[in-house]
């Protein structure tokens, strides 16, 4: 069930009504049934994985907290991590590692059999396994108390607004909210509705529209060159941003309807002045997860310089690999890690770009956007070879931006009005993001407006979504991770 589907439009109000007419004591049942139904709408067979992961982490959390013996506590932590990482590895990385091992053994002259399994990647597995791992680690470190109520804990693992693509919540932030007696609060509905509409607009009007052109180019990169590849890459940068931040907005808005505040996942990332800042604004729930559970345990920055750079780099490489079992994601992570290491080296040598005067800021923003786009090439390309083909052909400007296909002038496979419309959408989005960044507009500003103005804006958003949305039900990009 997609957020941008008719089914969800019916599902959400039904769950909301059931939630608020049920007494507080049993509301977790409504949320749990709704969440499992939501998950089963993709593939019912994989519900068993969530149940298994939930049960193991629930027991592990309780045992870690109740046991006084260091060995027992460590053993249950290892059990939780092994189960979650094992599930993740088996379903997400097994085929990749297996095929790479076979390739290497062939190179060495060994003829090994094929060990490819035919499982489909369970939706959201990377998200809920990371969420539950953070719970057991936090319990182990004494940062959070173990949840006694299995039902509430199960809702924490499977809360449907953020189950399949985050934000990856922390137990300390979410569980107590799920336990609270929620009352109907008008502000929550106002806030929730505006976030859902804004997220939907980003997804169906911008991301899915850009996807048509991006797919045309990236699925046959040999046929394109120069400006075509540059535009396709810029379009992908905005496609993935609108797709993922749109999903997060809908998740945050939906949760808010139930009185639950999820963490912000994006803060206008393309207005960053450095890659370091970019990662404070992009997929915040994941970057803070890697910071807290990988980078800091590795020693963070409180080690010798080379080790610090290594920590930074390896964190980003693993973060890249988290996105998918492909060398392209690994490369994407490595590029970001490499740039970040470079930025920190410059900082150490007093060559920090932040010391440049204010008028230089737009140039820095543009430069960081270019670097992010360069890394996106690897993220979106179907293979490493394709990525290098794109980079190579990008500087070949012998081909015009438009193609003439049997008398039809096409820009990235689309007529001029659609291409120009996409640029208009991107420029409009950037303008809004600048205003959001400067805190000139926000949900609060909108909520404080008079009823007629508010309703007119809501209606305008609905009309834009209906008129200009692409409704071929494309899945959200991050579902595949």
């Amino acid at each position: 069930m997609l957020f941008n589907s008719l089914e969800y439009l019916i599902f959400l109000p039904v769950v909301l009504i059931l939630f608020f007419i049920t007494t507080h004591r049993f509301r977790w049942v409504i949320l749990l049934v709704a969440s499992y139904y939501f998950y089963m709408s993709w593939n019912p067979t994989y519900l068993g994985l969530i149940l298994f992961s939930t049960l193991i982490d629930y027991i592990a959390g309780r045992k870690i907290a109740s046991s006084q013996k260091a060995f027992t506590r460590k053993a249950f932590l290892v059990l939780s991590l092994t189960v979650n990482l094992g599930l993740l590895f088996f379903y997400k990385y097994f085929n990749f590692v297996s095929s790479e091992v076979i390739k290497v053994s062939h190179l060495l002259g060994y003829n090994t059999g094929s060990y490819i399994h035919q499982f489909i990647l369970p939706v959201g597995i990377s998200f809920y396994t990371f969420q539950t791992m953070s719970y057991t680690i936090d319990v182990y470190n004494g940062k959070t108390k173990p949840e006694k109520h299995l039902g509430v804990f199960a809702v924490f693992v499977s809360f449907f607004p953020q189950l399949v693509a985050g934000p990856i919540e922390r137990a300390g932030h979410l569980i107590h909210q799920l336990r609270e007696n929620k009352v109907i609060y008008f502000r929550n509905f106002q806030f929730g509705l505006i976030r859902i509409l804004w997220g939907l607009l980003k997804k169906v009007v911008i991301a899915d529209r850009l996807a048509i052109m991006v797919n045309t180019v990236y699925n046959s990169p040999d046929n394109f060159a120069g400006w075509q590849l540059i535009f396709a890459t810029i379009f992908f940068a905005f496609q993935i941003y609108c797709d993922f931040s749109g999903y997060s907005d809908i998740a945050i808005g939906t949760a808010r309807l139930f009185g639950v505040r999820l963490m912000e996942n994006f803060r206008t990332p393309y207005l960053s002045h450095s890659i370091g800042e970019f990662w404070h604004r992009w997929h915040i729930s994941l970057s803070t997860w890697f910071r807290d559970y990988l980078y800091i345990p590795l020693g963070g920055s409180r080690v010798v310089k080379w080790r610090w750079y290594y920590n930074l780099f390896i964190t980003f490489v693993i973060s890249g690999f988290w996105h998918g079992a492909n060398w392209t994601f690994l490369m994407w992570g490595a590029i970001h890690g490499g740039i970040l290491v470079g930025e920190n080296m410059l900082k150490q040598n007093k060559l920090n770009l932040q010391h440049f005067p204010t008028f230089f800021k737009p140039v820095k923003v543009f430069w960081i956007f270019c670097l992010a786009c360069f890394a996106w090439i690897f993220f979106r390309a179907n293979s490493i070879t394709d990525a290098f083909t794109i980079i190579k052909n990008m500087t070949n400007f012998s081909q015009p931006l438009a193609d003439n296909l049997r008398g039809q002038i096409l820009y990235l496979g689309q007529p001029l009005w659609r291409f120009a419309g996409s640029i208009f959408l991107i420029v409009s989005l950037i303008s809004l993001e600048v205003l959001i960044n400067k805190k000139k507009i926000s949900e609060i500003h909108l909520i404080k407006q008079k009823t007629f103005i508010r309703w007119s804006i809501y209606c305008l958003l609905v009309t834009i979504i209906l008129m200009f949305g692409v409704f071929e039900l494309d899945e959200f990009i991050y579902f595949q991770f």
Partner: protein
Amino acid sequence: MMKNKQELYKVLKNGLGFLFFLTVLLLTFEKGLAWLVRQSDSGKTGKINLIMAHKIDPEILFMGSSVAEVGFNPKLISQQLNKSTYNAAIDGTTIIQSQFVINEFLSYSQNCEEIVIGLAFFSFGDKDSMTEPSRYLAHFSNKYTKRTIRNISPNLYYKLQYVPFYSFTQVKHTYYKNAVLGLKNIISGKQLQADKLNGFMPHNTPWNGERIDSTQFGNSTAPLSELTIADYGDIISQIKQQGIEPILVITPMFINGQKLFRNYDKYIKTVEDLALRNQIKLYDFSKSAIVNDAANFYNNGHLNSNGSHLFSSQVADSLEYLSPNNQ
């Protein structure tokens, strides 16, 4: 508790109020747009509008998909036969998908004597989706339109019928463009009328006989669905019941294109059987001299202006030869 009740009241009052406001606004917008689109006489939407508004009633009506749309030149045939003609064929749409247009036409036509149905190798494929809803959604309230959509795509029909404002998600920019053209017609006081070429859409692109890309007839088997053939039989019966003569025409296909199909002869035989079973006339142009020259086509299956001129003259000759006055 009191505060909670106040909040609940606020949510209900504002929620229901907003829903009402939104519904009225979108309903007005949806109906207004549909009305404006119905005032357009441009392109394919215009063709459908003309018939749905009972604005044309020719003696000979041409139906079919793109092969008929670019093949039958009504003006030329009209001059030769001295009869009024109109080409109501719509590209990408077989007569199974545009059955509602035929049904509406049959419900009011007083003048029509013949409905000529242009056929191509793909005419008898299974039809489980409608092509470009933008062209006809303004007429969704029409009973024939509803019936056609329900028969071909029940899923689309139920969503359009029962999901509020679902039509918005199905239309393309052409729908809004037609709304603007309709508005222009209203402002200028222009009545719906047929275009200068009476629905004919000539194509002038030159072609040297090579296959251009795989999208053109990549499949080497002409689809021959029994269900679709039966549907053709039903449409033919309905036309006959109104006292109008249905005529089948196998439109010319470039000879090398015909050879791409393993079952092209079987397709011809299917059309012959259909004509024989329903006792109607059939003009077969699959072996006409036109098909031997690539200069008559703009791709394997579609005639260009030159080819359509030759084809239309020959169609007119055939219609003239077989008219009651000559028998």
